[in-house]
């Protein structure tokens, strides 16, 4: 071990189910202590990638190393060094909080002497003090989710894979969960976390955007916002939105038009319409439009652009 080894290294990682390519030559390197967000639409291949990295699925091609261990050749060592929360973050519903912790401590062989302290830590972390003897089935989603995280780190793994840990949990609980993630990262735990929520992407050191099995973009939130748009983004209010989008997509100099709430985001690539002329152009075609303002792109704008761009390429 000379150069500092990446916590996660994937090269050309591929998974094929029958004829369907779920993950397609994915390259990903994660440094120790990094929090990487894994973002992509439904069925993009997030869970499949995470399962390959956890040695739950065998890659069809490519290689991957987690904490320095080959996920194919040294699966058991990989398992010793990772914590994993599956998409269903499953606990035993008929067992109490403390019994669940004791069970997972048992199968991970947490030394008996260390368990009381680590168990307490997990209970505190989950905010379940005084409810150690409550059956898990009686807990609300946010507590279950934090308890599942507590169970996954009882053996103090250096690498954590969290598959949509915040899905179906209220915003306040989500915020608390991200605090926990950052506390762990501060202790140099490496975390790969998949999510559907765009605002959560902002909490990550880096974001990996995946679409239909391909890694489409990788970088820090700031980098992604700056890099990938290639034009000026403007926002304007207009009605009706649907007609406006259809018109704008055919308009000269417009690279992309997308609806965000009650507003239209339009990406202008220059050489055609500009921000000032947009309102009049739309009005001439029967769409009432407000004044167009140049805005800084959000991550969501970037993702829409990247994914839509890929869709267009695929069609062409």
């Amino acid at each position, binding site marked *: 071990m000379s150069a500092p080894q990446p916590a996660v290294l994937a090269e050309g990682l591929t998974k094929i189910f029958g004829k369907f390519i779920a993950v397609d030559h994915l390259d990903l390197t994660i440094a120790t202590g990094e929090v990487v967000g894994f973002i992509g639409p439904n069925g993009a291949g997030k869970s499949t990638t995470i*399962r390959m990295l*956890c*040695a*739950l*699925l*065998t890659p069809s091609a490519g290689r991957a190393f987690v904490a320095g261990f080959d996920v194919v050749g040294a*699966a*058991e060592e990989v*398992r*010793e060094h*990772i914590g*994993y929360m*599956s*998409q*269903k973050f*499953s*606990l*035993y*519903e*008929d*067992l109490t909080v403390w*019994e669940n912790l*004791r*069970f*997972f*401590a*048992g*199968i*991970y*062989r947490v030394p008996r002497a260390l368990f009381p302290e680590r168990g307490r830590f997990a209970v505190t972390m989950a905010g379940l003090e005084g409810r150690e003897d409550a*059956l898990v089935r009686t807990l609300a989603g946010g507590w279950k989710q934090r308890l599942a995280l507590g169970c996954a780190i009882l053996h103090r793994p250096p690498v954590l894979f969290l598959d949509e840990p915040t899905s179906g949990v209220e915003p306040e609980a989500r915020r608390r969960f991200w605090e926990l993630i950052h506390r762990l990262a501060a202790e140099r735990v490496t975390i790969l976390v998949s999510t559907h929520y765009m605002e959560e992407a902002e909490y990550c050191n880096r974001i990996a955007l995946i679409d239909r099995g391909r890694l489409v973009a990788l970088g820090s939130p700031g980098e992604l916002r700056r890099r990938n748009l290639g034009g000026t983004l403007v926002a304007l209010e207009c009605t009706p939105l649907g007609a406006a989008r259809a018109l704008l997509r055919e308009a000269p100099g417009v690279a992309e038009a997308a609806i965000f709430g009650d507003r239209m985001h339009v990406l202008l690539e220059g050489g055609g319409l500009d921000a000032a002329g947009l309102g009049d152009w739309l009005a001439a075609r029967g769409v009432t439009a407000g004044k167009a303002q140049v805005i800084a792109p959000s991550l969501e704008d970037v993702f829409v652009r990247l994914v839509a761009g890929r869709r267009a390429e695929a069609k062409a």
Partner: protein
Amino acid sequence: MFDRLQAMLMKEFLELRRDRWAMFRLVVPLLIQTLAFGYAATFTVRHVATALLDLDNSQASRGLISRFVATGRFNIVDVATRASEITRDLDSGRATAAIVIHAGFARDLANGQTAPLQVNVDGTNSNTALIALGYISQIVSLYESEHLPTIRPVSTMDAVPAVELSLAERPWFNPGIEDTWFFIPGIIGTITLIQVVSLTAFAIVREREVGTLEQIMVSPIRPVEFILGKTVPFFLIGLGDVALVTAFGVLWFHVPFVGNPLIMLLGASLFLLAALGLGLLLSTLSRTQQQAFALNFFLVNPLFILSGFAFPIAAMPAWLRWLTVINPLRYFLVVIRAVFLKGVGITVLWPDLSAMALLALALLGLSVLRFRKSLD
């Protein structure tokens, strides 16, 4: 190994204890099935509706009739005076069997000649008819042996489809034992098999569906540890099943238990291991509880039919007989019936015990190999 196994076992027992209906689901069907089989599924036929025509009306003929009545297995529903009345009784279904003692019965019996005795049975309920014929032939031959020389019953095909007397010598007909005695031991094997196979299969498939199995597979647990953790509780439940039904059979149905309980324990343990292996194998073949249910149904029925529980293996076509060789229930039934009713020991039963041990080894081995910690 010990820590993980201990954790698995503790979890399983806690889950079982929390499941308020578990005891109900485990015990009640067992008792109901035992009762149902014990009372209903029996070859012992009582109270056969019988019509009687005594044309001899002698001391000898009345003696024979009293023998029939004394067994409690024949209800004399009609004492006829003419042959036509007998035919009418059988046709109308009022009687299942008819016994006609012809004139000259006593004289011929005294002379040592063939004494004419005619038995008609309603062949439409062939099972009852066959059994009734069996009883009649026994009673007659007993009477015959006491009043040597011979009376020979004559069977005729009269009015209704009748059955030849010789058919009563079917191999399964075992006049020596009460049929409940024959059935209860069989039930122990059958019910335990059904319960243990389905419990094991469903327990694992449920964890797969809920997602906890994925959480376990991602841990460094070894397949053996997981499988032991899953099977030990069901092994104990299975032993409980065996003990419960045995106690029920002995105390309620008064089935004699003449053999050595330790041999029974040995046989039951080997059998349960094989059943657990089957359940595990089934769970590796199903993704959802529905699939497990379908497979279970598909598997348990043939096991039951090809076990010799009700249908004699000797009477099966050769290729089916070969299939029974890999059926653990077949061997357990031999062991359990032998221990219960005959009290035979290892010297006689070792081939069946070894066959079960081999099957258990093969099935458990296969399921450990098949249970890989992978979702592929």
